[in-house]
Every structure is written in structure tokens, then in C-alpha cells.
């Protein structure tokens, strides 16, 4: 039985197509690295100025000048490039990054995302999240379906300050894969063994569910 996070990551890896340029946010999304097939031709972008990051091989000495935006030491794969911060964000704002994965405090049925500030509690600064959220073609949110107190994180309307409005394409939690559509939040896949009523109970947002077309993951 995979853990909730493993289930999210394994499902998230299926959102990446060979040949794409992919950005992995800090935290859970960074671990997607481990779920990409080795032979898959994908260039991982890191906003501190690398296109073509690769995990360090076990036991190899790190190059102290090579980190990703989360601060972890990395290496590069064939076809990689390095560049300054203005160019890195030009790449983002010009939508040359195909897909980005991010965590969330809250996400809502309009595709609004809040993942950078909890007023009075947590405000270290937004870093690169705002431009990634606003400009990358496809934003996939990876998060737990509920917070640690059991409260829903998939809401009708975000209450925290937004990272960017109407920016989310898909949400993947341990319970469901949801697509943000014109008409609302459409459930694409539901977790193995979970029934639709239990999913609705755990969710504040209105969910559009067609039981005949529901996938399992």
C-alpha cells in the first residue's frame, strides 16, 4: 500500500509528457524527480537559473556551485544550460515552461491558488511562485486533500492571500485528481477504495462527478 504522498507523486508523474520543460516546486513536488523514468527526455527547469537539472548520483561529491531553487545540490543532464535570474524568469514569463508542480495551503474551484502567506503566522516572501503560477502553461497542484486538522483545502473560494488568480489546471491529492474547467471542478480520477460520498464530505468545493467516466488511481 503506497503512502498518500507516494500515491500523489506516482499519479503526478503521469502529467508529464516526454519532450517537455518542467518546473518542480519546493517540497513535495521536488520529489517528483524520483518518479521520472530515467530514459525520459525531459528538461527540469529550476528558477535559480538551470534548465536540465538532474539528481546527484548516490555517493558522488557535490559541485558547490550547483543547487536547485530548494537549495539541494544537483547535477545537469545532457542538453542543460545555466543562466542568470532575469533570464530564468523571462523563460517563465514567456511561457516556455510547459508544466509546473506546486504545493498549496488552499486552492479553489475557480483555480485560484494560495500557497505563500498565512497573515500573522507565515510570511517568508513569495520567491518565484507568483510568476510560475501566473505564466506557466499548466499548473498542477500537489497537496493533501485536507489540512492536519482535517479541514478541507479544496475550497469554494480561497481565503488566504492569492499566489495568482485562476492559474490552476489540475489538483492531485491522495483522494482525487480534479480538473479546473469553465463550469467547475471536474473529478477525473478518484482514489482506489474511496467512494464518491466520502470524497464530497472531505471537500468544500462543489465537485462535478460523472461516475461512468471516473478513473481510479
Amino acid at each position, binding site marked *: 500500500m503506497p503512502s498518500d504522498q507516494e500515491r500523489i507523486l506516482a499519479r503526478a508523474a503521469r502529467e508529464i509528457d516526454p519532450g517537455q520543460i518542467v518546473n518542480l516546486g519546493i517540497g513535495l513536488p521536488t520529489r517528483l524527480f524520483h518518479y521520472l523514468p530515467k530514459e525520459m527526455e525531459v528538461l527540469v527547469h*529550476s*528558477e*535559480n*537559473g*538551470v534548465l536540465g537539472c538532474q539528481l546527484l548520483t548516490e555517493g558522488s561529491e557535490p*559541485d*558547490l*556551485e*550547483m*543547487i*536547485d*531553487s*530548494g*537549495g*539541494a545540490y544537483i547535477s545537469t543532464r545532457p542538453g542543460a544550460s*545555466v*543562466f*542568470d*535570474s*532575469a533570464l*530564468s*524568469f523571462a523563460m*517563465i*514569463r514567456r511561457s516556455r515552461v510547459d508544466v509546473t508542480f506546486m504545493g498549496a495551503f488552499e486552492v479553489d474551484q475557480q483555480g485560484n491558488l494560495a500557497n505563500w*502567506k498565512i497573515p500573522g503566522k507565515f510570511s*517568508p*516572501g*513569495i*520567491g*518565484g*511562485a*507568483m*510568476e510560475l503560477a*501566473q*505564466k506557466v502553461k499548466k499548473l498542477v497542484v500537489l497537496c493533501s486533500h485536507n489540512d492536519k486538522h482535517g479541514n478541507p483545502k479544496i475550497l469554494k473560494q480561497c481565503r488566504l*492571500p*492569492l*499566489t*495568482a*488568480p485562476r492559474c490552476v489546471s489540475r489538483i492531485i491529492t491522495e483522494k482525487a485528481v480534479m480538473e479546473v474547467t469553465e463550469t467547475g471542478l471536474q473529478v477525473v480520477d478518484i482514489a482506489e477504495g474511496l467512494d464518491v460520498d466520502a470524497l464530497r464530505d472531505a471537500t468544500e468545493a462543489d465537485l462535478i462527478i460523472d461516475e461512468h467516466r471516473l478513473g481510479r488511481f
Partner: protein
Amino acid sequence: MTLINQKYTSIEQAIANIPSGASIMIGGFGSPGTPFALLDELLAQGQSGLTLIKNDANEPDIGIGRLIRAGRVDRLITSHIGLNRVAIDEMNQGRLAVEMYPQGLLAEKIRCAGAGHYGFLTDIGLGTEIAGARREIECEGKTWAIEPAIHAEFALVHADLADEYGNLVYRGTAINFNPLMAMAADHTIAQAFQVQPPGNLPPETIHTPCAFVSQVVQVELASSEQGRRAHAV
């Protein structure tokens, strides 16, 4: 600007140009590209009341983290300080004024000053909390936010290689804000692991031409190694 044949100097002389109260851009994203040796010399010389402009606040015991901890910094213009709990505490206690921008806007505001401009128009952040603090204008039938350029009196940058005229070559993810800041300050001091005679670096490999660099100093690999090795993530 310093004459090209007078730029190669000692770290003590270079940093002694900086008065208390100065505004200083500091290269680096996390540890790579942070000019640790120049910052340690600034700490040793005692300048205070500084305004620093840096992507992040390093970590509490390295780089600008040491200057913040010593109470030398009044104001920090940055993007994300999540790895420095001391800086967050100082901010929350009201002892450190912190101005935060989305990272790409911070980079572009600096690039813009370095290109001799005074600001640019953007759609980044429209409809979010940061938008409230900005002026917006109608232009070509659309609404944009105005982002003024950020300029500074000094920049401290880290390069891998330099020559005695101050031409700079960066390496790996240590590039980050360094070439942008080198152009956006009135007086740029560069540290490099090797400072070579002019002519050794192939012209087409130069990232920052010497016209933007006021002084260049050679630092031991070990002097910056300490900071880089202390990088904890």
C-alpha cells in the same frame, strides 16, 4: 569609474570604500554566488546602518546572515527569507525593515537599472495582494503595473574567474543575480577565485565586461569555501 589598470586591489581596500548607511546589492541565490569573503570583510570593518538588496537572507551564520545577526543591516530588499529564522525574527520584532518582491520582478528591477532604465510595465501580480502597493497605468488599451528599477550605490558580486581589468566569468548556478547587480550599482566590487592577466580569458566567454566593475579582488577558495560548505539545505 576606476581606470582599468587600477582595479585589481586588496579586499581591505576595496571594502573600505563602503561607508556606513550605504545601499549594497549582494549577489547569490542561497550560497552559490554569494560573495562570502567580501561580506566577511564588511563585517570585520564594522560598517552599519546598511541597506542590502539580495534575493534571500542566506542562513543565520553565513553571508549576510552574519551582518543581520550583528545588527548592521537596517533594511533588506529581497524575495524570500525562509531559510533564515534570525532574519524572520528581526523582521517580526521590527528591527529589520524588509521589502519583498516576487523573485523575477526583483531580478528585472535590477536588470532594468543596469540597462540604464528607470522602470518597466508588467502584468505580474495584477489581482493579488502585491498589486495594492503599486501604481497602475493604462497603456495600449490594457492595464499594467509600474515597476520602478532598483539601483544601488554598491554591488558585491562573486565570479569564478576574472582578469585584472575586472572582466568576469561566472560558473554554474552561482550566476543568478551577479551579472545583473554588477551593472546596476555605481561601484561594483567583484571577488573571484582567480584573477588572471588581461588576455587570458577568451573575449567571447566574458559574462560581465570590465566596464561595469570598479574593483576586483582575488579570494582563496577556502575563504568562500567555509560559507559554501556551511550551506545546510
